[in-house]
């Protein structure tokens, strides 16, 4: 899978760095520490800018190339920042058969962005994700932790409007 890499300037805070150092210290002597470190670092920063990956590489005593190899391999790791509301449209088979592609089209039309992109105002980001296992509710999308099931494309505008107005 191709990864988009952010070119926004890094804006990490000292508090975040302190948390990151604690994560590295906790996993340092573990076998296979890179993945847990990246997972927890993404929780702290929301994404994995190269500065964070450099700190992890130094902290674990491995090359940046090795860390970068892992972070670009797995789809869970994001090298671009997410919007305030991250929309994931499930494109698993059950959702696809029930018209998830039309739901995705309706969202891209409304927001003017493609999957893996973020709106210029930083409000929404969009992902086409793998099966989240809620096949009983197909087609499904999630906005942050909120799940919307049994969707039809016509509902999309109304749902997004709620978030734009700050009612959600």
């Amino acid at each position, binding site marked *: *899978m191709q990864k988009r890499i952010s070119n926004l300037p890094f804006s990490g805070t000292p508090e975040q760095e302190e948390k990151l150092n604690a994560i590295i210290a906790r996993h340092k002597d573990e*076998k*296979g*520490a*890179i*993945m*847990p470190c*990246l*997972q927890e670092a993404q929780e702290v920063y929301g994404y994995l800018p190269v500065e964070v990956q450099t700190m992890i590489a130094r902290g674990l005593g491995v090359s940046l190339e*090795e860390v970068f*190899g*892992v972070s670009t*391999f*797995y*789809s*869970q*790791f994001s090298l671009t920042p997410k919007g305030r509301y991250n929309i994931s449209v499930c*494109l*698993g*088979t*059950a959702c*696809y*058969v*029930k018209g998830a592609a*039309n739901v995705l089209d309706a969202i891209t039309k409304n927001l003017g962005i493609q999957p893996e992109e973020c709106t210029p105002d930083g409000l929404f980001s969009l992902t086409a*994700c*793998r*099966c*989240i*296992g*809620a*096949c*009983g*509710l*197909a087609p*499904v999308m999630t906005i942050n932790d909120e*799940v919307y*099931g049994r969707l039809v494309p*016509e509902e999309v505008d109304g749902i997004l409007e709620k978030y734009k107005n700050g009612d959600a």
Partner: protein
Amino acid sequence: MYRSNVLVCGGTGCTSSNSELIIQRLKEEIKAHGLEKEVNVIRTGCFGLCALGPIMVVYPEGAFYSMVKPDDVPEIVEEHLLKGRIVKRLLYQETVVDDNSVKSLNDTTFYGKQRRIALRNCGVINPENIDEYIAVDGYQALGKVLTEMTPQQVIDIMKASGLRGRGGAGFPTGLKWSFAAANQADQKYVCCNADEGDPGAFMDRSILEGDPHVVLESMAIAGYAIGASQGYIYVRAEYPIAVKRLQIAIDQAHEYGLLGNDIFGTGFNFDIQLRLGAGAFVCGEETALMTSIEGKRGEPRPRPPFPALKGLFQKPTILNNVETWANVTQIILNGPEWFKSIGTERSAGTKVFALGGKIKHTGLVEVPMGTTLREIVEEIGGGVPNGHTFKAAQTGGPSGGCIPASEMDVKIDYDNLLAIGAMMGSGGMIIMDDTTCMVDIAKFFLEFTVDESCGKCTPCRVGTRRLLEILNKITSGNGTLEDIDRLEKLCYYLKENSLCALGQTAPNPVLSTLKYFRDEYIAHVTEKRCPAGVCKALTNYYIDPAKCRGCTLCARNCPVGAITGSVKQPHVIDTQKCIKCGACMEKCKFGAIDKR
């Protein structure tokens, strides 16, 4: 003792439709009526009938409430729990008999034909409480193994049971264990594959969410059998509820001395760690999974050496799938003969399927091997909804194939499915109807494998991309008959030359749709027509002059002005201008617009 137990489904499906809020409201209402000493609320795992979620069952009556809303809770508490009157309005309608009495869930068509072994505790116990697991004979099999049996006896039982790996390939579990047991090493590992990556499959997740201890117990049994003291569970990070419940289960098992050092005072040590996957389909392949646990890019390794000799951290390792583990304790407790008596001769036991797509009862079903697809779709699944007809069932996800209507009476087991060009796979079963284009579905799976190919070997990295390009050419109306032959030839090349199962099985969706639905491919290239009306480039919108009232609504909504006509006269779509957005069809109040 409580007089009533209220079980609320806490699986991912029902949680997504607000079952947490229902539990919260239940507790509040019960407290408000002063019933908290009489009525117990339990959050369970998945009941299986996800289409009707959120689900709530009240015992001892066994009243099965479906599609419960938080606002229904006060009525259920007031009427049922306080006054003892079942709220019939909210019951799963199939459990209501004509004379107004309620029948048992096991008599409904959805549950009646099922036999639950792997799912036996899902929707029955509270997965976050080890005492409830112990109350249903939990950890008894481990006790029996450690105190009464030798490791060899355990392996012999597993071999005799005929259990085959439920992850998809169907390798005999006992045999796998015996290989790892025979190899000497200072450290061996037992791994659980909970990286359920097939889109449309969710049985492993439901077992982890509904019955996490069974996986821990079975892994400890395997540890004893092969001489391993460390286990790893590799679980998808996308399954937060499963991860949380597994961690709770591990902590509780430690507290009870059922994991850790000197288990049951026998001197046997076994511990389990969780490892979170990060969203890579290839990590469901055994060698890639082990590379990923080692913290690296999850790329597969060539076999041999097989993991039983050199697996995780280069030590002998066995890896089994969640559903396989869920069968182990029952085989130990009930004996291999019992297990062998269920299912078919070469595929013993049951199989869990995640039923999805165009089917009435979406959900999880567990049936004995040898059940026919017709029984699953028409009886248990309740058939295809909205008056459409069954076209095919897709099993095995991106590695599998399609079972067409003509093969609906095949008895489903590992070998029969392979013989008709499909495969068992992990158990995702997506039902498709006449509105599904089979070329489009093959393209959908290829898009998936192109994305998920790890890139290590050329046949898979480049081959899947070339396959997708040919499919795109066909669905965009530019294909030729030679393209179909080229497509088929390339499929066989990929099967023979790819390094791991991902590339070897990636062509299966194409090959099986070519086998059974070649006419659809041919219609796409020769007639430039998509019979199911899915492929946009080949579909045109038309207005039926007999139905059109000339209301002008479609013309006003067309973004490119492709629709013309005067008021109260039938309108016409200029197919040259039309961008096929479908806006007119959505807006038409008379159903006059059709695509074909």
